[in-house]
Structure formats: structure tokens, C-alpha cells
């Protein structure tokens, strides 16, 4: 158990994560050539969602803090991107410079809110924390309405289109270019997140999650670790939201509802909490499943299809969640590790007892399924643990 949370802080460890991240990114970039424009749009959407789910899975899986506000963080990133991009368009900046600066704007906005929220979160736990993050998500629409002059209410903000760079214009379509950008951003963001999760900070996060008092006795500054976890997950979500804004040239509160926020949690749980590859699976699932269901219901009579199209995906996600939790508590990403018992593996390489690359996917300790975290924390009201 303790072995599992040992970090791979050696240069070889982080170097390998970067190498893997780069390789997967290149494969994904190559895959865009095999897809038609709409599929590339979906791939780009998955990449944007992946940023947010990866952040969430590290936050919940590694640091043990539940957030229902991940969609709000995406929205903040999206609005930060749109406002910066529009300001830059106003002064005549465009192209790569506008994209990079607007990305920075989006990430900075979500990072700032994440920091504030993290400072509060470090003092809260369980249902209290969930309540706080829930409030942030619900506040998005009223805030955009109240400051309608800045955020343009329900209609949201539109931004100028970034077309394909002239060099590539004959080779790739618009959607493919957008998918490239989304994949590159996701590659950078998620690789950085995986490196963080593998570093000493990641170890401290897991120690904090498992037993905060013990962690503090070991000299870990748990408050700071929790803030860092929140900040990291907010920044990745913000990057995802900024990319989503880039893909669709718009951001509106309707895209970041409470339902979507819960869907991000479902994606992280179904994929396997704490697992980056699980986050990728979960992101693909929440983008593709509703679309597939709609395709299937279109064959039905119009009225029935209309009634089912909105509700059936939600029902399926519920069933899937129950199924995955009942049969594979580590989520979809955990399933493939089963045939390879860890003991054999360690025996075969006694010199490297610490986790290898699979540690990037290391699910939370099986003895403590994180889904139960929220439930477990209900009886432990704050005063109980504040000694």
C-alpha cells in the first residue's frame, strides 16, 4: 500500500512521462487524418473535455477532494479566453499571438478562481466542499446575466475565427486544424498533470488523502497540498474551456450547466478515479455516448425519439456507473490491469519496486474506493477531525 504511493521523482521517471505524452499526442495528431471534419470536431471536443476530466481525476483520486465545479472552471477558462481574444482583436492582434495570449488569459482566470476556491477548500471537506463547488457551478448563469454588459447573458460571447495557417491550408481542413490545437493543448496540459502527480507533491496529495493527520505528523503541509491540487485541476479545466471556446468560437453559460459538471464527475469515476487514461476513456464516453444514442433514437417515431433523446443518455450513464462500480471499482481503466497481478510484476523486477509507467494510471488504493469518500465524510463533521 505504501509502496504504491511512492513517487518516481527520478529524471528517468518524469522523462518517460513526457516521452509517453509526446508519443500519444503524435498518434492522436496522426489519427486526425483518418477522420472526416465532424469526427475531428468530436475529437477536438473530447480533447478539451479530457483536460478538465484529467484535472478532476487527480483532484478527487489523488488529493481526495470532491469538486462539482469543474464545469464552472471550464466556463471561466472559456470566458477568459473569449474576453482576451476579443480585446486583442480590437487592437488588431490575430493569429498565433492572439491564440497564445488568449490561452494565457483563460488559464490565468481559471487559475485565479481555482486559487481562491482552493484556499477555501483547504478548510472544508466532504459535503461542505461539494456544496461550495456546487454553488460556483450554479452561479455561472446568474453572473453572466447580471454582468450582461461583459458576458452578454445567455447568448454568451462570440470570438473571431482563427482559420487554418496558409502553409497548411491546402493539406488540412478547418476542423482538423482545430483538432490539432486541442490535442496539442491536451497533450501539454495532461503531461504536466501526470508529472505533477508523479512528483513529491503527488505523493503528498495521496498521503493527505489517505490520512490527513498522519500526513501532517510526517511534516506534510496538507493545507498547501490541497490548494495546489485545486489549483492544478482548475488550470487544466480552464485550459479545456479555453480550447472549447477556440473550437466553437463561442462560450455561453448553457454549455456549462450543473448537469455537465456532474457528467465530468461521472466521466472521471467511470474511467477510474486517479487514472489519466481512465479520464481519456471517460471523456470520450461522455462526448460520444449521447451522440450515439441520438443516432439510434432517430429511427424511432418522432415523438418517442424526442422524449428519449434527452433522457436516455442520462439513464445509460446511470446504469453504466452502477455496472462499472459493481464490477470494476477502479473504473474502465482499471479493468485491463487485472490479468497482470502486481505481485508477479514486482517479483520479476525486484530492483524497481516503485511503480513504473502504470503508476500514471494508478487508481486509488482498492481498499478506499473514492466514490465512498464523500459518503464516508458525511459522518465526520469538521469538528471531529480538527483536533
Amino acid at each position: 500500500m505504501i509502496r504504491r504511493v511512492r513517487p518516481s521523482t527520478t529524471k528517468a521517471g518524469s522523462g518517460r512521462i513526457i516521452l509517453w505524452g509526446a508519443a500519444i499526442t503524435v498518434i492522436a495528431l496522426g489519427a486526425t487524418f483518418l477522420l472526416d471534419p465532424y469526427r475531428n470536431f468530436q475529437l477536438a471536443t473530447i480533447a478539451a473535455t479530457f483536460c478538465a476530466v484529467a484535472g478532476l481525476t487527480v483532484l478527487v483520486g489523488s488529493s481526495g477532494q470532491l469538486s462539482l465545479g469543474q464545469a464552472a472552471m471550464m466556463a471561466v477558462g472559456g470566458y477568459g479566453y473569449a474576453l482576451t481574444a476579443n480585446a486583442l482583436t480590437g487592437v488588431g492582434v490575430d493569429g498565433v499571438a492572439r491564440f497564445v495570449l488568449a490561452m494565457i488569459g483563460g488559464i490565468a482566470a481559471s487559475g485565479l478562481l481555482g486559487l481562491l476556491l482552493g484556499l477555501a477548500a483547504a478548510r472544508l471537506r466532504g459535503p461542505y466542499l461539494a456544496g461550495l463547488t456546487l454553488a460556483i457551478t450554479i452561479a455561472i448563469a446568474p453572473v453572466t446575466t447580471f454582468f450582461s454588459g461583459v458576458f452578454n447573458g445567455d447568448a454568451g460571447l462570440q470570438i473571431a475565427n482563427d482559420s487554418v495557417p496558409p502553409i497548411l491550408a491546402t493539406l488540412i481542413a478547418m476542423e482538423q486544424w482545430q483538432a490539432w490545437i486541442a490535442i496539442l493543448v491536451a497533450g501539454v496540459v495532461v503531461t504536466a498533470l501526470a508529472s505533477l502527480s508523479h512528483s513529491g507533491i503527488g505523493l503528498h496529495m495521496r498521503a493527505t488523502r489517505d490520512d490527513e493527520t498522519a500526513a501532517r505528523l510526517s511534516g506534510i503541509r496538507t493545507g498547501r497540498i490541497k490548494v495546489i491540487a485545486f489549483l492544478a485541476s482548475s488550470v487544466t479545466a480552464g485550459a479545456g474551456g479555453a480550447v472549447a471556446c477556440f473550437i466553437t468560437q463561442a462560450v455561453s453559460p448553457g454549455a456549462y450547466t450543473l448537469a455537465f459538471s456532474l457528467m465530468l464527475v461521472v466521466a472521471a469515476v467511470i474511467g477510474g478515479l486517479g487514472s489519466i487514461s481512465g479520464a481519456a476513456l471517460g471523456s470520450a464516453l461522455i462526448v460520444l455516448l449521447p451522440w450515439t444514442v441520438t443516432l439510434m433514437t432517430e429511427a424511432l417515431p418522432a415523438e418517442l425519439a424526442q422524449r428519449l433523446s434527452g433522457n436516455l443518455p442520462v439513464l445509460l450513464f446511470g446504469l453504466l456507473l452502477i455496472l462499472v462500480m459493481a464490477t470494476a471499482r477502479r473504473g474502465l481503466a482499471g479493468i485491463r490491469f487485472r490479468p497482470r497481478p502486481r505481485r508477479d510484476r514486482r517479483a520479476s523486477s525486484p530492483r524497481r519496486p516503485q511503480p513504473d509507467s502504470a503508476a500514471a494510471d494508478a487508481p486509488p488504493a482498492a481498499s478506499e474506493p473514492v466514490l465512498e469518500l464523500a459518503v464516508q465524510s458525511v459522518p465526520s463533521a469538521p469538528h471531529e477531525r480538527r483536533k
Partner: protein
Amino acid sequence: MEHRSHVHRVTAAAGVAALLVALAACSTPAAPSEGGGVPGVTEDTVTIGTHTPLTGPAAAGYAGISAAASAYFEYLNDNGGVHGRSIDYIVKDDGYNPANTQTVVRELVQEDKVFAIVNGLGTPTHLSVIDFLNQNEVPDLFVASGASDWNQPEKYPYTFSFNSSYVVEGAALAQYATDAHPGKKVCLFGQDDSFGAELIEGAEHVLGDDGLVAVERYAVSNPDVSAQIGALKTAGCEIVMLGTIPGFSALAIGTAAQLGWSPMWFATSVGADYVTLSGLLKDAAPQLLDGFVSANYMPGISSDWVKLFSTINDEYNDGAVFDGNTIYGMSMAYLFAEALEASGQNPTREALLEALTSGDLTGNGIVPLAFSKDSHEAYPAAGIQVVEDGVQDYVGSTYRVTDDDVEAIDAAFPPVTEEGIPAN
């Protein structure tokens, strides 16, 4: 040892990726119009699509529009279609949420390869896809919204409106208020986007910059309007102009009734359908809606068009409730058929645009269609309807609105020819 195997794996993966890139580079992804033919057009079909709210806050008022349009297209197909082609109308639900609109419209254009987007519904929703449609050179016809954004031929050559604009309706309603109820205090309750803003612009065109005594706004995401209605009551409003979708028209009227307040309501065509509002206000409707004033430009209840549409509704729409949405949806579908017919034996997107801007299309609205090379505005005039004894019909006041003037005109709907099927 293990380390080395990882490096191997990574190298192998990168190699495979590079190979993929090299292989696939030969097959640049298909552009929307690739394949030689016209997107959405085959020997015997023309496929078009729309985005519309079938669920969510706006569904109550608008879900019937696409059903009515589909019914008309079925009627048309059963009678030979257009130049022998039947029309396949794909309807996608966006829940009146711009984020969904972007997804479903991309799907229609890139997956279903539609010939045109027809009657996409909503100002905030359609604004989110107008750039995409024009960049991809997809005809974007008869947007179901009175915003003036759709009438920008220079910037959006592929986009055409269908409604009379909110500026036109605002001016017509304000002019009617001045003519029929002089000296009353006029206020406005509007949606917090260009819908509300343009209605205000139209009203002030007639009443002057300070002509509106009070203005309140609402957001679709917040279905509680008591604060705004209370403020209007306090301001002593006697006439309240409504820049609202049907659900919020009913909310405003219902909330005012709960406050014991009953001003005169002047609504735009998009939020004024009597049958829809009755369905929302239930038993109180006859009392609350008596004398309800609204602008409109579609055939009135006593016209021959409505008789024809009523027959089609019975036969092709399972006898669904016949309301203003039915008339609107079928009129729009008729206009599309007329435009497609005028595009010739072998329709292309260019020919369709040519037909639309030729000035030869008539439509069935209160004034002849105003489409031309320089204008993508459909109907620059609006008539006034009033509810009397549960019947909503024109009272004979019709106003044509130009940049400088609001002028009362005589109007009559064009006669129904060829059973409402554009001549082959």
C-alpha cells in the same frame, strides 16, 4: 532492462504514428462539397435540416413549428415534390442552448450533408452558428428570429431572414399604441439579448428616445420575473410591450395577474400566439388574454391559406393543435419550396441564392417578400392583431417601417394558387 523496453515501446509508437501521418497525408479530409455533386441533392431528393428547441424553456412555444413544416413537406412530396424531388427535412433538437446548436448544426452540415439549413430557430442559438454556416457557404435560409443580424448581405451572403424584424414590430406596435390609445404610458419587458434591444430600438423609433416610461429585462435561464413585473407596476405602466418568447409572455401575464395588475399587453409575433399562450395560462387564459394586442405578418385566421394549412395539418400532422406555429411553419416550408422551384431543374446552392435575390419570390406574408441583392430582410411590415372573444385576428392596421418613417398601408394576403404547391 524495463526502462529500455519502455523506450522501445515509445519509439515504436512514434514510428507507427509517423507512418499513419505519412499514409493519411495522401487522403486530405473531404471538404463539405467534395464528390462533384451538390451537397444534399440527389436524383430524387433534396435534404435540408434545422435546429429548433424540442426540449427546454422555449419548446413550449416552438416545438410545433418544425412539425408543421415537416407536414407541409410531406404534403408536397405526395404531390410530386419540387421538380420531381422529394424534400427530406431533418429536425434536430438544440434545447434553445447555443452550445447544443453548434453541435447539431455541424452534424447537419458535415455528417448529414444538407443542402441548406432552413428556419434555424432563435437569436442566441442561431448567432452561434452564423459564422460557421457562411464560412462553409451553406445557404442559411429563413432564420426563425426577428433579429436584424440576419439581414447583412455583405457580411453574411448565405443568411436570409424570415420574420419581420423586431425593429419593425416594435415600431408597428408603438405606432398602434399611439394611434389607438394616445396618451397612455408605454413600457417594455424584453429578453436580455438583441431580441429585447431591437424591440426597444423599434419602439423608440416612434416614441422618441425617452418615450418608454420603464424598461425591464429577463434572462431565459431564470424563470422568475416577479421583480421585473413589480417594477413595471410601480412605474405606473398602462401598456407593456413584450419582447418575450411564449413561455415568458405567459410568465409575465400570469405574474402580473398574481400582483393584481392588468395593463394592456402588446406582444411581438414570436411570443404572442393565442393558442400557445392559452395552453400555458390554462383556465385563466380567456380572461387574461382578452384584448391582447400583437404584431404579425403571417396569414390571418380567416385567410384561404389557413384553410389549406388546416387540411394539411389534419392529414399530415395527426391533427395536432392548430395554432400560429402551424401557420408559421407551413408558410416557411411553402416559401422554401417556392425558392427551390425557382432554382431550376438542377438546383445548386448558387442557383438557390440567385432565386432568392432575384425579387421574383412572393411568399404568403402580409406584404410581398423584400429579398433582393441588397437586402435579406423578408417582410418589412407588420399588421396588428387583437384577441376578441378568444379569436386572434387582424384589425386592419398595418404598418410599413423604413429607416425614417412608419407608414400605415393597406395589406392583403396573396391568393392560394395550385393548392399551395409551387408550379412545376
